């Protein structure tokens, strides 16, 4: 583990329309690790991803978000992106009239080390399209317009590989995908890890997408709070038991004793 974590969130609280959604989140991700954020629907997982990215729809009411040792609370989303944070959207937006290739060029403009012009850019695009089973003709299509769910996620992976961010937050990138598209997303994550030793925060319900990944840490969120953390074995435990136990604990249900490592021992031993 490196001395300074890549992402360090301390006491983070965030609200939308004066309603607090995130309560005192603490989360640390060292560089090069793969973390998974799990939790039931409405737990605030996607909100956390958006708040890290600086989505103006949410107001950060407390705490700090430090990235690479720098507090980025005051940074706009484009500056966070240029600092090395990437958020893959659960539902990527459509922007009619903007060809994908034009958009991609804009994303790499003025990024030291990534600036490419003319032929170099097109060659790189061809390579990435081949790796993601994407016809290069997609590049001439309007961003997101008429794309299927799977195609949109491929375009997200394409950007991940193009931008090579220090931290990639993948917000349910696997949701609603068929087996083939799921394979492409998995390959995209693998390529990202290999190509730049990237750091991942994967927000998901689906443990299947994690099968081929070496997960370092799992965080469980319930009702806007991180209620549990553990190693990769926690994934199998959740796969078997779901989130009910965590939800009960968060609700202060006396019928269930506080979740201890002993509760997970069976899974851990396996």
């Amino acid at each position, binding site marked *: 583990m490196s001395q300074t974590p890549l992402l360090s969130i301390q006491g983070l609280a965030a609200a939308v329309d004066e309603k607090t959604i995130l309560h005192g989140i603490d989360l640390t991700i060292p560089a090069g690790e793969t973390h998974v954020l799990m939790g039931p629907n409405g737990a605030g997982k996607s909100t956390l991803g958006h708040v890290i*990215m*600086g*989505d*103006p*729809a949410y107001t950060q009411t407390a705490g700090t978000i430090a990235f690479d040792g720098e507090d980025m609370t005051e940074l*706009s*989303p*484009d500056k*966070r*992106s*240029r600092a090395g944070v*990437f*958020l893959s*959207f659960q539902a*990527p*937006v459509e*922007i*009619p*009239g*903007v*060809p994908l*290739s*034009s*958009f991609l*060029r*804009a*994303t*790499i*403009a003025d*990024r030291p080390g990534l600036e490419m*012009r*003319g*032929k170099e*850019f*097109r060659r790189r695009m061809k390579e990435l399209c081949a790796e993601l089973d994407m016809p*290069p*003709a997609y*590049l*001439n299509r309007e961003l997101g317009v008429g794309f299927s769910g799977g195609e949109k996620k491929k375009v997200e992976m394409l*950007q991940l590989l193009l*931008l090579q961010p220090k931290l990639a937050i993948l917000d349910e990138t696997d949701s609603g995908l068929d087996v083939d598209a799921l394979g492409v997303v998995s390959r995209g994550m693998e390529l990202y890890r290999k190509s730049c030793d990237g750091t991942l925060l994967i927000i998901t319900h689906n443990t299947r997408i994690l099968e081929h990944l070496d997960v370092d840490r799992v965080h469980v969120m319930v009702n806007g709070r991180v209620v549990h953390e553990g190693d990769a074995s926690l994934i199998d435990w959740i796969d078997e038991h779901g989130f009910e136990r965590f939800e009960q604990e968060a609700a202060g249900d006396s019928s269930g004793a506080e979740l201890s490592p002993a509760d997970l021992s069976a899974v851990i031993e396996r």
Partner: protein
Amino acid sequence: MDALKIRHANAMPAPTWGWLRMNDTQIEIPMSLAPGGSMEVDAEDRLFDHAMSFEGAVAELQARLDAARATANEGSAGDDRACVRAALAENAARNVAADGAAEMPGTAETAESGSANAPAADLELPALSRYQKRAALEEAALDVATAFETGIGADARAYLNFLARETMVLAAAKDTQERATVRVEAEAGEAAAVSIDVVAAPGSTFDLVIALDATAAMGAEDNATAALAGTTLRVFAGSHARVNVTVYALGTPTAMLLDDEGYVLDEGARVNVRHVVLGGELTVTGLAADVRGDTARLDIDTRYLASGSEQRDFNYVVRQRGRKTVSNMNANGVLAGTSKKVLRGTIDLVHGCKGSEGSEQETVLLASEGVDNKTVPTILCDEDDVAGNHGATIGHVRPEQLFYLESRGVSAEAAEALFIRAKLEDAALSAPDERIRASVLRLGEALIPGFTDDIDAPKEDAA
């Protein structure tokens, strides 16, 4: 500055309140511009060996329409709708008054003839607006040549014909497939135009590309119209013919571009029009179509960009007269800087066009706060069993779109540049040939330094 003024250009057929200042436009052409420029045609010689002129094709259609009307009217009184009777009566009264023969109200009927005769005391006769009267008279006359119109209007057509000196007729023979490219280029201080008639015989396919190019005037002094390039086009699409027209209007921020078009569609004809308007201090694009034949179809796809203080003025008038005809107008544009744009789109579902459908949609992205956009969709309808639809999406970048762009490192300022770049890149990628593409790149380079380097690959490179 002395200027030739063309008033009431690009006029809506059924005007709305004058104070909205969008019924029409006024074109001011500096007298300093000298007729000149260059015109180039790339087409097979056989296209010029025309067996049929535009007028001849219209006359032939007219003969068929007259014969069909005579058959339909056999044993009947013809079109005796109250609005037609009213229009005819009013017209007759005016004619009589003009002759000095009508001294008293009620004598107008003496000038009437045939079934359209209407007694002045006929209380069923409705009061007609000027537009309704004109429409009723036109329907009663069933005269294709008289009803023919072009989008910008007769005065602009006369001016462009003057600049062009002569009209070029390109004709495709029956069941053949032809193509032609026409370029009009104007350099600084020049006004150039071309007048084209296209006659596509039954069953033929005709692809026409027109490039209005005033990008060579780059670097001319500001605040003066540096160059003018224009076209006036008449198209007759014969029975089941297919005509595809693409017009690229490319000019520097000091250029004026005029594109005046008129179409007649015979039975089952299919016409696709693509307008790409990217530059020019003032561009005026007008298209009027007489969708006369049954089951004919017209599709119009318009892409435009205006930046700086440029102005775009569009007028589309589609009169659907045949049964089961279809028309679609789709426009997509980006307005940046302090640019202005008016787009008038009129679908006229004329009496007798049963089973027809017309649709118009426009998407305008307002990339900055200072732009002035007017979108004026109009649907006129004098028939039942028809469908007319219109819709417009006008707006700034939505917050979720902006956040998406920002999350990928594209700031709000860079987003505006992106929308401009995207429009240019789209036009370059879909340019019909390398010369047009080169002009798009030249224009792009002037707006965005480095633009050419980014997309200098041939089209197949991205395919």
